[in-house]
């Protein structure tokens, strides 16, 4: 059964806005160390909001690419373990254009969730 509004994304945004705009100024005045922690928390809520919105499609894209790249089926975790193994052993390296395109795409999707401002 679908939940009522707000959606998860809307609720996370509302919590983050409240903490940033109302709670943080008070905490900054009384307890600066906690103010820093609260910034970390607000930032983490923003990550969750983006992950809820963008994560499932990003995971599906990563899975599709890995199946094609490795030529086998498996869960996302299994396929990444196999890729990591091949990279440590040197069976694949940065000279492999398909590999690099996959990693670029995967990291682009990850950073869009974790920290879109990073460049």
């Amino acid at each position, binding site marked *: 059964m679908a939940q009522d509004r707000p959606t998860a994304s809307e609720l996370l945004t509302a919590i983050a806005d409240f903490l940033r705009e109302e709670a943080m100024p008070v905490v900054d005045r009384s307890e600066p160390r906690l103010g820093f922690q609260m910034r970390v*928390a607000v930032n*983490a809520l923003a990550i969750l909001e983006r992950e809820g919105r963008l994560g499932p499609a990003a995971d599906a894209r990563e899975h599709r690419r890995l199946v094609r790249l490795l030529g086998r089926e498996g869960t996302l975790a299994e396929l990444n373990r196999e890729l990591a193994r091949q990279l*440590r052993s040197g069976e694949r390296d940065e000279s492999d254009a398909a590999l690099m395109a996959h990693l670029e795409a995967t*990291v682009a999707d*990850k950073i869009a969730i974790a920290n879109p401002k990073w*460049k």
Partner: protein
Amino acid sequence: MTIHTQGEAELARSALAAAAGRHFGRVAEIEGLVRQSGGASRQTWSFDALVGGRRHGLILRRDPPVNGKTDREQSVSIDRATEFRVLQAAHCAGVRAPEPLFELEPEDGLGEAYVMRRVDGTAIARKLLRDPPYAAARGLIAGQLGGIAAAIHATDTRTLPPLKRREAADHIAGLRRSLDLLASAQPVFELALTWLDRRKPRPLDNPLLVHGDYRTGNYLADETGVTAILDWELAHLGDPLEDLGWLCVKSWRFGAVDKPAGGFGSREELWDAYERASGRTVERARAHWWEVFGTVHWGVICLNQAWKHLSGSIKSMEHAAIGRRAVETEVDLLQLLKAEH
């Protein structure tokens, strides 16, 4: 919590009065004792000691008995007594570092601890990079860091306590062990570690003192630029370019991405100053290797920090959240490997 902290401050005050009294040879009064760093371990306290009408601004560094370090951290960081002796050797060699004064005794009850002179300046990157008082300093810091790095590396290794030697191959093995412990597949870090493994610089015949955590955030600076290099707990013997590479990791630019030397200048400015002060040429490929290495290193540290929380060794939202910063270094690594010719 407050009561506990109060008790801890009282304990520190009386122990410091006794230890400062021993050091200065007369009665010492302790004033203005405040805790500076947040964590439970690796504490830093600031205080004044009044001795015969003279006021000494001092810093206490201490490790309480409890700790939440991962095995890897325990194997790479040095104990306080060793840190004290490294600081003594570096300070004697003319490195801009706080002057270490005396160690505390086990019967003082503060755990492993020592006292050094307080140096003016701030370590907060955000202020140094953006606040008006530091406008002139910003143009000087990259060059100063090159000169100071040369002084650190020129420290006579015979004056140092026994330190671990850590070369490129040891570092790579250490990071791979960390990834295995975390048991999460990390394709980009594996790619970068294999790239590094295939291009390892040859170890120096005579390894030098390496600071080990030479970056913005770990030095104090004021309006005149860098006043003191801090945080010597990762000191070891090895390749001096490790320090220059680590300083250029993008995470230590705190947003000033177009200024690789710690957010304050170009790599060339840093290298030129280093070459002038040391008389040695900075091999470009070797410097690049250490920057790539530093970037993987920071990424793995991010994962390790999160693991401290996830494994239950310390409960900390801040540590948990750092895990999500690892991907920043993945972005940087793909850029760096593409830039390589």
